């Protein structure tokens, strides 16, 4: 029963979707404040390599090591996105180019690879990978067991985060002010809200979540560090923010859909289903384009809730 292919696909969709969701949720926070972060891919990679490094070097119990690795990934992601925040918010540079430069700087052939090489993290299996838990001993329960009770701790954390983020964004005062900053910084500024502070905090926090997403790759999915291992997940996460209409709940669903597409290949191959691996590999990228086309007419964009000031540096009008 539990080996039913659909259940396996769903369970692994959640597994593979978890890092996508972390990165997408980070993107939601960042973009809600009006900053476009195209550096997600690079941020994830830095998070991933720092997480792997921590896991290799910090002893102690499994829980301690893994928590430390995750925190280190978040810290690294936060640092990288502080750089982005400085470029986009303080220097008011073109946000697209700034994000791209983050990805090139930190990305596959950049800093993440450099650090992995000098610190000898590359291709070293991590001693304490993030494993799927057996929650309440229910992982063997038919159908729901593998889906709900046999996931990683980070997955459960992500579910809590999804709920908290929804409350934060749509039901609290700070959330209201954050959305105002992304919709109309002029208004927010005139009402005494510190636009710069809101943007900095949410850009950095968004980067921290992306960093955690990266750690999931190097500690759970593979689990060892390989240069450029996220293979475009950061970019898919950016698309997921749009696809999820800037809402955590929808982004979660979207992440699992793309998680399913990513895991389909290995799942089917393990079951000896004959299908071209290349075609399956291409599926997430192809679907991203399709989904983007569907939701991106200018009219739909506004209706779906894109922050009106997204990507626009704020400066008080000087006449």
């Amino acid at each position, binding site marked *: 029963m539990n080996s039913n292919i659909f259940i396996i696909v769903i369970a692994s969709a959640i597994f593979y979707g978890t890092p996508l969701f972390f990165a997408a949720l980070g993107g939601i926070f960042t973009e809600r404040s009006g900053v476009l972060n195209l550096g997600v891919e690079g941020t994830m990679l830095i998070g991933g390599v720092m997480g792997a490094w921590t896991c290799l070097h910090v002893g102690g119990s499994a829980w301690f090591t893994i928590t430390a690795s995750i925190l280190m990934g978040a810290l690294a992601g936060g640092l990288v996105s502080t750089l982005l925040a400085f470029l986009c918010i303080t220097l008011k540079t073109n946000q697209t180019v700034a994000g791209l430069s983050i990805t090139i700087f930190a990305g596959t052939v950049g800093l993440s690879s450099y650090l992995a090489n000098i610190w000898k993290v590359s291709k070293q299996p991590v001693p304490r990978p993030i494993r799927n838990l057996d929650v309440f001993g229910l992982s063997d329960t038919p159908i729901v067991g593998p889906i709900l009770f046999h996931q990683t701790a980070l997955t459960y954390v992500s579910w809590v985060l999804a709920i908290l983020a929804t409350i934060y964004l749509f*039901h*609290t*005062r*700070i959330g*209201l*002010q954050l*959305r*105002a900053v992304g*919709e*109309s910084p*002029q*208004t*927010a*500024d*005139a*009402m*005494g*809200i*510190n636009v710069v502070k809101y943007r900095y905090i949410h850009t950095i926090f968004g980067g921290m979540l992306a960093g955690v997403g990266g750690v999931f790759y190097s500690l759970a999915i593979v689990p060892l560090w390989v240069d450029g291992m996220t293979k475009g997940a950061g970019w898919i996460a950016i698309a997921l923010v749009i696809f999820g209409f800037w809402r955590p709940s929808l982004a979660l669903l979207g992440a699992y859909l793309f998680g399913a597409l990513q895991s389909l290949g290995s799942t089917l191959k393990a079951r000896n289903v004959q299908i071209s691996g290349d075609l399956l590999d291409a599926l997430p990228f192809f679907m991203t384009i399709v989904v983007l086309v569907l939701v991106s007419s200018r*009219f739909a964009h*506004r209706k779906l*809730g894109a922050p*009106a000031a997204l990507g626009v540096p704020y400066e*008080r009008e*000087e*006449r």
Partner: protein
Amino acid sequence: MTSEIAVKMTGIVKKFPGVVANDHVNLEIMAGEVHALLGENGAGKSTLSNILTGLYRQDAGMIEIGGKKVEFNSPRDALNAGIGMVHQHFRLVSTFTVAENVVLGESDSSLFMDHKAVAARVQELSDRYGLAVDPSARIWQLSVGEQQRVEILKVLYRGARILILDEPTAVLTPIETTELFKTLRVMVSEGRVVIFISHKLDEVMAVSDRVTVLRGGRTVGTVNTRETSTTDLASLMVGRSVEFNRVVRQTPAHREKTVLDVRDLCAADDRGRVALESVSLSVSPGEIVGIAGVAGNGQRELAEVISGMRPMTSGSITVDGESIQSGRARSAIAKGIAHVPEDRLHTGLASNHSVEDNFALKNYRAMSRFRILQRQKIRDQSTHLIEHYDIKTPGSDTPVRLLSGGNVQKVLLAREFSASPKVLIAASPTRGLDVGAIETVRERLVQAADSGVGVLLISEDLDEILSLADRILVMYEGRIVAEVEAAQADRARIGLTMGGITA
């Protein structure tokens, strides 16, 4: 009226790149008065009020509130000192509800909002000051007048004692204006202070207790409203005596002919909603037809559809019997439609491009051979137009954005007029210009009409339309609701129809 000084600004200096916006400005406002800040565009009114609201920081000078010296480092400081501003361009989040906009930025540390309490408080305020608006409505659903009420409510909700209103009547119908004045009176009767920024003399006379006039970034003087007159104020404002007269036309219009004919025109706005509902109108050669109406009633869309920038959903447009292709600006240009759009710097001109490139913006195809631009031709055209239209620019290759407002408009007019058009669509052609430039622009429009061009003048300034147009159409909610000959026009009547009331 007590004689207590509520606000005192002394020696305020604010410089921007290339200009001194405020040059040692002094302002003294008493408690319980409506104090008008009068001046032309660019006189420094907005800068001064932005300093008072903490949005800008003065380079020099001192602010005292209620006798105490204050330092504002952010809008929050000013709000805490009881100063609130209703901006000319509303500071509202259009996807939020009225209540959400009102509580925004409130320094309340509670995590969640008490929606009920907020709504009740908003309701109470709106009852007390006659500012009817539904607290749960979303901003984009409201009319411009209602949005302004939200702006005022916002400021009152924060407990502001000093309210600054920047050109508040620009977006209102005459009736709404009267209502606003009543609200302002209620507020000052409670001891609040209203600073009313305007360049409209009649309104300043009607609502204020005292007037401070600014000119070229300096304080010219402060007078009691009762002891002054519109003519006195006008000469203070401009620095010389001015008379506003109906412009005299040299040649009458050829009313028997039609140059522009618009039939049953329908079109949508940017959000896809109906903006024009079977609009029909015609313009004769040499005639100036004025379109009056409050902003946002389809005027912009009308101008854009006629000039081919926006597709029509149905209907037809013809120039001299030849029809214009829907949404094809090139077709409209070829048929002889000139267009002076409202947004001069970003629609009518490519502002980072040079003056000469902007002159060639519509005829660059003719200025090329084998698809290669003929730079010399473009330069020659520019030299000619700069001289002919008396444009003040450092050079032909200076980016347009560096020119003054009046010269920017001259560049635009020069290009449009020099194409010898049959029809000219002019949308708010004098908005934001100083008196001298306004006169020049108006003269040019009349000259164009005298030479046989059919002019469609779209303006929110009813006085401008009354002084220039031969015939006046009133637009309301995407329709033409009234048509009068200028000679028989009754200002009050037109004002009513602008608000949707057809007598």
